[in-house]
């Protein structure tokens, strides 16, 4: 079993690498780099300032990993030191630094050009495709440790770990010298055990959600910030203040202002805000999970009954429903159902009407999403049941004198459930991807729209990150499904089995 798991994990990692490398190659080679500015909001404002325009473009490309970029000023700072008076000398029109810049950077393989108005030089160099891909992986996994922060202005920074309590009073392992103050903590939100030691860095979102790390875009809270009162001790003094900072996200901040000094004892003062609405992932997962539970509960029950009453009226109605749902466009039956929900049940047909805090907002999207799920589960369980009903062992069980009901519930249902069980982890994890049509229809702030909009916005970092995440979770889901099946089907074992006698 262990050998098998190791092998599967190895294969999984390899698959993830292949998929994400291919995506990286595709995104970096097939998407023209000019297109990334399509959704940029800054560029139109500086369109009539050619120097700034140029600079902004090259800086953005550098940020996105396409090129290495160096201006005359930057090079001067590099050569003379940041505060040297020689830097401004170097920018004077008759300076010999122009020639030095040109020769030095050309020698390094850069292409040197002059800005159209000021005439200052800049140099660009394309980053090779392979290097881009390599750099993405190189910075993917970031491990936090007490020697991570090297701040020349703060030589006395303490380094090491200590146990503490967070603002909510929960136990936490905190650290100093690290990027994040809280390394490990427990609280009451899933999965109850959290850490900041190993973090994935998949770059920053651009042009949408500009500058926010992509993982924070999909997993960070949404909506307005949630303020709450905090009572704590700072430098021996009891203080109380209102804040919306999430203390677990506190990061090292080199320069503290007065407000920070009033709240924090140390340099860890840079935190994300807590918000009232759950993250995109969270919203999609909530709706998806409830919808999945509903689909399984109703779909399986209906499918089992339909199989028992095969060719009778209940079965025919079930089949009619399945055919209806499968044949008409999703948008149409969702629209029909939403109208029904709004007119007859008086439920909001747009999620933001009542917002994430009101349970009524979730009802229509959840049920809409289940409509298809119910049809799917009912179809498959009915099919597996009917398949089992014609099996010889069922005939034999009947000839043993077991009743129809006994044969159904003791023999057929369980056997028919096995393929369903196999698909459950995939369905659970699939909810993370969100439901594009349902979420768009009800204006649910979930994951569904992320992938299509990332593509249409040329949000490269987001495309790559989502592909990576979905690949990982899909592979994980299939693996979990395989493991789950070994618990319900004695014939399947993960270890290489001895030949059956």
């Amino acid at each position: 079993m262990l050998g098998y798991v190791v092998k599967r994990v190895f294969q999984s990692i390899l698959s993830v690498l292949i998929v994400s490398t291919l995506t990286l190659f595709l995104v970096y080679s097939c998407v023209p780099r000019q297109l990334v500015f399509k959704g940029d909001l800054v560029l139109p404002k500086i369109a009539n300032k050619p120097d700034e325009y140029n600079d902004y473009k090259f800086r953005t490309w550098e940020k996105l990993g396409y090129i290495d970029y160096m201006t005359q000023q930057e090079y001067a700072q590099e050569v003379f030191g940041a505060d040297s008076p020689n830097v401004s000398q170097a920018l004077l029109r008759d300076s010999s630094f122009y020639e030095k810049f040109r020769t030095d950077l050309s020698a390094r393989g850069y292409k040197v050009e002059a800005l159209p108005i000021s005439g200052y030089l800049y140099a660009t160099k394309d980053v090779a495709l392979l290097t881009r891909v390599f750099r993405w992986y190189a910075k993917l996994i970031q491990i936090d440790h007490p020697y991570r922060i090297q701040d020349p202005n703060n030589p006395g920074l303490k380094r090491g770990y200590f146990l503490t309590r967070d603002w909510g009073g929960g136990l936490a392992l905190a650290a100093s010298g690290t990027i994040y103050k809280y390394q490990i903590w427990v609280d009451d939100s899933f999965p109850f055990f959290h850490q900041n030691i190993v973090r994935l860095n998949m770059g920053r979102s651009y042009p949408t959600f500009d500058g926010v790390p992509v993982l924070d875009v999909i997993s960070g809270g949404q909506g307005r910030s949630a303020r709450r009162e905090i009572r704590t001790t700072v430098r021996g003094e009891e203080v109380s203040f209102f804040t919306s900072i999430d203390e677990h996200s506190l990061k090292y901040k080199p320069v503290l202002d007065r407000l920070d000094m009033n709240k924090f004892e140390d340099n860890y003062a840079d935190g994300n805000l807590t918000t009232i609405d759950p993250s995109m992932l969270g919203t999609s997962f909530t709706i998806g999970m409830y919808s999945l539970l509903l689909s399984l509960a109703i779909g399986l029950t209906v499918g089992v009954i339909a199989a028992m009453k095969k060719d009778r009226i209940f079965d025919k109605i079930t089949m009619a429903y399945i055919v209806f749902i499968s044949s008409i466009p999703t948008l149409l039956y969702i629209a029909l159902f939403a109208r029904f929900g709004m007119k007859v049940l008086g439920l909001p047909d747009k999620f933001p009407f009542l917002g994430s805090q009101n349970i009524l907002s979730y009802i229509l999207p959840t049920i809409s999403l289940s409509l298809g799920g119910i049809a799917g589960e009912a179809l498959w369980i009915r099919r597996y049941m009917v398949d089992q009903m014609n099996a010889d062992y069922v005939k034999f069980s009947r000839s043993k004198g077991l009743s129809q009901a006994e044969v159904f519930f003791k023999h057929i249902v369980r056997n028919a459930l096995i393929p369903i069980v196999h698909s459950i982890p995939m369905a659970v994890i699939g909810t993370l991807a969100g439901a594009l049509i349902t979420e768009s229809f009800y204006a649910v702030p979930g994951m569904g729209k992320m992938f299509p909009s990332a593509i249409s916005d040329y949000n490269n970092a987001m495309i790559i990150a989502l592909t990576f995440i979905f690949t990982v979770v899909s592979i994980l889901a299939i693996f979990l499904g395989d493991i789950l099946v070994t618990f319900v089907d004695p014939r399947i074992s993960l270890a290489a089995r001895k030949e059956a006698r």
Partner: protein
Amino acid sequence: MDQNKGILKVRDLVVKFRVRRRELTAIRSVSLDLYEGETLAIVGESGSGKTVLTKTFTGMLESNGRIAAGSIEFEGRNLLELKTDKEWEKIRGVKIATVFQDPMTSLNPLKRIGIQITEVIEKHQKLPPEEARRIALTLMEKVGIKDVEKRFYDYPFQYSGGMRQRIVIAIALACKPRILICDEPTTALDVTIQAQILDLIRSLQRDYGFTTIYITHDLGVVANVADRVAVMYSGQIVEYGSVREIFYDPRHPYTWALISSLPTLARKGEPLYAIPGTPPTLFNEIKGDAFAPRNRYALGIDFEEEPPFFKVSESHYAKTWLLDPRAPFADPPHAVKLMRKKGNIYAEGGAAEAGK
């Protein structure tokens, strides 16, 4: 055997199926007596109605089938008066049990062997699980499973085909039925295992005293196990008698044809005999003798009128006009003559022995 106590009496049974809006008659007026403790073999080619006939004994006809006429008398009542599944469940597995052809698929692959045995015992004998388990273990030992305590918790895939058929037999016998129907119990097994299973059934029959019906198209098996044989063709029994009578002195041309098809009786250098043509479709009403179109001994009347049963001996009857005193002499095929000769040797040997 010579006990003449009837246990199951089938009279003029007619079974019809609705298939694609047409009705076919699968069993055309069959009468049959089963005697306590005997082994009856029902032989015939595929589609002759062997299985359908025995399914009526346990009310296991497919949902599109119905019994149009006749009666099946068992333990003093007509089984065809049983209407609900609940009533049938007191017969199935309890009084009349069935062993099916393919042991590989007869057991639920996901249930432990032991549970599949005990569920019958618990249901029909209303015994507590511990008691049922004890009985199941005994049964498993009885059918020749070793290390039963451990094997009780194994799954079917951990058993070989022969072992599974032993388990199927154990399940069938769990409630000590009076009749065991073996529907081609050895067809799916290899030859050495076949013999073991047949021996097993025979020895269990001695111990438990049940009556066995074998459905088979393997005449080798018939010769091996049967006391009496009924030959079926196109939904009718065309000849029945003791196993000796059927093998050594068959009278119906269809039985002749079956025996002629036995490879062991073929003459060297001659092609192996095969019955020409195919059985008639059962959708239409059959006029005369159903076998007539394939029968080279057919008389004119065979195409006009259905023959009655002619008595050959007390136990041997055949449904052919050839036995009518007015019929011309028909020279049976070589294989049948060969068998007759063998039969005479045995008979003389027997007589000689008796004379000592």
